[in-house]
């Protein structure tokens, strides 16, 4: 079940990478054409948007969200969360970011027993780590920790609080 889901994720990421690959090619072509051989002036960036820069900006915006949510008793990442993780993975998997380390926290709502929830939180953190790794992030860049039901995002005891609390949180170190 999860493999099929992961497969879907792969397709999305693969196509995204392809898109970016094309973008950077186009970029180098256009730069070559604007270079005047006789003049010794420093090339000024044209006022158009660099696709690479634009991609980074979009990615940065996407990565402002750092929480993915889960269903009760479940550790599978839902499509919205998957898209978010792919955005983080896109950034983390860049060679220049290979030194960036993130911590993935797994959390649960208060239903069920604290000890079981601590283990369930670990499953959630690992499910997130797995998706990041399948999208090119190195295992050395990911730390996982479970807080079980001990650190609710919303400490009230209601259905809506529980939805907020069944989550995985990404935090960048440093």
């Amino acid at each position, binding site marked *: 079940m999860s493999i099929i889901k992961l497969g879907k994720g792969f397709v999305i990421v693969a196509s995204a990478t392809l898109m970016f690959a094309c973008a950077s090619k186009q970029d180098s072509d256009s730069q070559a054409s604007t270079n005047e051989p006789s003049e010794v002036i420093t090339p000024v960036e044209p006022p158009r948007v660099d696709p690479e820069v634009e991609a980074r900006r979009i990615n940065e915006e996407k990565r402002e969200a750092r929480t993915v949510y889960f269903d009760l*008793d479940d550790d599978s990442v839902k499509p919205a969360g998957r898209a978010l993780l792919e955005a983080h993975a896109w950034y983390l998997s860049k060679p220049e970011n290979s030194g960036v380390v993130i911590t993935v926290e797994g959390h649960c709502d208060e239903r*069920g*027993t*604290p*000890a*079981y929830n601590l*283990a369930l939180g*670990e499953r959630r953190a690992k499910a997130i780590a797995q998706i990041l790794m399948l999208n090119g992030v190195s295992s050395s860049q990911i730390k996982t920790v479970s807080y079980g039901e001990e650190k609710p995002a919303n400490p009230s005891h209601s259905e809506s609080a529980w939805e907020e609390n069944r989550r995985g949180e990404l935090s960048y170190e440093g």
Partner: protein
Amino acid sequence: MMKFVFKVCFSACLLISIKTNAEIDILITSGVDNARPVAVIPFTFKGIGQPNQDVAAVVGADLRRSGRFSPMARHLLVQQVDKYSDVNLALWREKGIEAVVVGSVEALADGRFRVGYELVDIFKKQQEMRNGQLVTVDRNLLDSYSAVVSADDLRFHAHRIADRVYEKLTGERGAFATRIAYISVDRNLPKPYALMIADSDGYAPQTLYSSSQPIMSPAWSADAQKMAYVSFENGRSEIYVQDIYKANSRKRVAAFEGINSAPAFSPDGRRMALTLSRGGNPEIYVLDLVSFRFSQITNSVNSIETEASWSPDGQSLLYTSDRGGRPQIYKQNLASNRAMRVTWEGSYNASASLTPDGKTMVLINRTNGIFHVAVQDMEANSLRTLTETELDESPSLAPNGSMVIYATVYQGRQVLSVVSTDGRFKARLPAKQGEVKAPVWSPYLN
């Protein structure tokens, strides 16, 4: 009629709570029709001033909390006496009272108190020979006892008297002179998380450890001298052991990669069961506290194994496992390593422990999405829900198996509650501020 009884005991408890100024007050939420009627007469005081504790009130509250007894309201008492010889048996018989507790507190010159008590069985008769004739005589003094205690120990001593009364009248050892540990969470404090220890009725809470990061899963050692617990002070779950009565005695015993959780001391005190996911998957281990060697007890590829508790003989572990898809209770013998699933009713069974006789298992059961404290007969395998509260967790048995303390949510706050193991009596111990959870009842204290 029951409502009236509740009202009386409710106000009685309120009175007690004002006197004792405990952090936690006990509110009886459900009483028992067939609890045995007894009377605890206020102890007389000899000396100057006032004793700092109402011993009779503590004894009465304990007896009521057991679910076995219904102490008579003070304003209905028909006699105010403090010795067996002054107890008018006929008067109490008329009121249907089965047993009367009398006693006195005497202030000594050195500041200590002499506490004396007598337990009178109102109905007991015995036949004996007198002048060659068989006659029926009253043989009513069941117990008498006196001790000298410090002012600080007077209230706890009242629990010891309640234990004696309970044992004489039921034949089972009492468990009132015990303690509970629990976690309090008050998000307004700089260190919101605290491991607390209090008397079994919530009185005299003391902080054993507090932290800016979560604390969970407190567990008593068999000799009640140490506590193990999980602390997140280093940003992850690690297991610590702390001597309750010695300063600077905190020791970290497990801090492996992954989770380190759910410590449980063995009945002989030499081992600790715990959960580690250092191998990638949460498994039950047993740590030998002498050699400090870990042995892995469960070995499953993809399931969670956690919350081990020891059988009273120390031969087996009960634990929660979702190897069958959903969390259920398994029992595994440590010699044969054979595991057996023991719960079959409901989609979620967890946090199991056995009564001292090994016949009854207390656990958390989820049926139709609601988490309740439940008991299961280990022979008949029949499961019975004990509570009407929701979101119950962390059930812990009193050392005599008669009561269960657990965490639940009441009016939007996490509170502690107690229920008698037969389900007939329920009470709530709400904290004055913040939330309280993860209660664990101590072993007997000697």
